[in-house]
């Protein structure tokens, strides 16, 4: 789906160090990838290469086999990889929800009857059908962000890249957006690339890529990544709250596994210990 080969980038020539250095990353179709890293690690810069907003200084980026430098295929790339940004207010262009969702297909020159279908379907997918005729500025943050996602869905993309889509939302809005993404990934088979600061969100992904100083530091399943609590902390990153708790407990000498990502798993692990202790007492 997306493949980078020795990707390097810097914003201007005066800059001494590279923002991105020698990145080799392959994102397969249908994957749900979370990209994490501290501020300035190059996360946003990296994902902006995925739909040719930025072009590589060195190396190459391929989207569905198309080199992003190929200007004649620019709109094929942009249509295939949609992008959602942090601030929902700054990406909605129209004064009415349905007009906003229609913006991308209008740009692509899709026939009006087909646009109508896509708008209705996209809004239904993100659960915003009842707000079709509303003004976006009256919606909540989470709702606005879901409208923004619908606006990308209306292009019929293969992949959606989201650059910290929940950073400006309240917990309810966050949950709405993450639920929507999980649904898009599992039901529509859309590849999701989620840049995030929130480790509890990164847990929902099937794969986590950790960036540091413009390079890929770690890449693997959430369980493998978050297990390495000390390494993550050295990179200036946190781990999910429940993993942190388990980590602290094991440091205190309580025998719990470290690869725990959810509250349920933690409950099971702790009740096992309790049972074991009870067993000890009885014998």
């Amino acid at each position, binding site marked *: 789906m997306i493949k980078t080969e020795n990707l390097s980038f810097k914003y201007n020539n005066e800059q001494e160090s590279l923002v991105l250095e020698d990145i080799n990353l392959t994102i397969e179709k249908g994957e749900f990838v979370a990209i994490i890293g501290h501020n300035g690690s190059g996360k946003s810069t990296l994902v902006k290469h995925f739909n040719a*907003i930025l072009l590589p200084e060195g190396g190459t980026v391929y989207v569905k086999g198309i080199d992003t430098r190929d200007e004649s295929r620019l709109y094929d790339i942009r249509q295939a990889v949609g992008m959602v*940004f942090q601030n929902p207010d700054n990406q909605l262009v*129209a*004064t*009415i929800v349905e007009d906003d969702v229609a913006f991308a*297909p*209008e740009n692509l020159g899709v026939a009006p009857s087909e646009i109508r279908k896509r708008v209705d379907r996209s809004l239904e997918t993100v659960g915003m059908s009842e707000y079709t005729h509303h003004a976006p500025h009256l919606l909540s943050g989470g709702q606005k962000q879901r409208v923004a996602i619908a606006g990308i869905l209306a292009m019929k993309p293969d992949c959606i890249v989201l650059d910290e889509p929940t950073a400006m939302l309240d917990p309810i809005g966050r949950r709405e957006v993450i639920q929507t993404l999980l649904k898009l990934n599992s039901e529509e088979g859309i590849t999701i690339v989620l840049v995030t600061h929130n480790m509890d969100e990164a847990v929902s992904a099937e794969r986590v890529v950790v960036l540091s100083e413009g390079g890929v530091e770690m890449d693997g399943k959430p369980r493998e990544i978050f297990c390495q609590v000390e390494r993550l902390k050295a990179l200036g990153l946190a781990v999910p709250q429940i993993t942190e708790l388990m980590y602290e407990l094991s440091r205190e000498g309580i025998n719990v596994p470290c690869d725990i990502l959810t509250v349920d798993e933690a409950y099971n692990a702790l009740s096992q210990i309790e049972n074991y202790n009870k067993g000890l007492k009885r014998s």
Partner: protein
Amino acid sequence: MLRDITLGQYFPGNSPVHRIDAMVKIILAVLYMTVIFIAKSFLAYGLVAAFTFFVIFLSTVPIRFVLRGLKPLLIFIVFTAVLNLFMTGGTVIWQWGFLRLTREGIIYASLMILRVVFLIMSTSLLTYTTSPIALTDGIERLLTPLGKIGFPTHELAMMMSIALRFIPTLLEETDKIMKAQMARGADFKTGSLIKRAKALIPLLVPLFISAFRRADELAVAMECRCYRGGKNRTRLHESKVGRIDFIALGILIVFSALVILSNKSG
């Protein structure tokens, strides 16, 4: 203060007035305004009033909404009326010092008030019954002939619709910055005019910076959604001129003819 501005406020509905094609509606509004300027007798204004209230009734927009649009322009209306009242020559009815009231003055002033009131009512009725998107779309289509000689019609319409989209966002932002500055001791309400104008600087600078940042982000977001100007662009709502538009045009022509006739008789 900012809430009183009715321009650009849309009152959703499905009345015959709402259903008139935006481009046709703009043409009709211009035609109607021309008729207001032609009208010279009180009988003609009677007709204009009857027609305006008939359209308001048809549009299902509450009349107080339409009248509210007059409020911010009250001073302007009074000012023109007073000027006309005292500055017109003719038969003197009453005089006090240099102030002179003439028969013609009274007539002119009252006609002027009627004219301005109906002008404002008609423009606010246009924006009440047409969504901003439809309105900019209408303007774009009206300007299409100019596009042939290289006039950027699509870009202009896009700019207008984005400006309309960001009015509430920027108002909200202004309010937020104002509160933030007030929390740090800024004073926007007291002092001389110059002092108050100076107090606006810490409000305007952050507002401008954030507006530029928003513009930048919006431009990238639009590019991500394959925006490339008006070329080969389609529309969700295809607008075509239909039966209702011709009926509306017919009614307005009859109305104009009646006004012109009544001018002669009165």
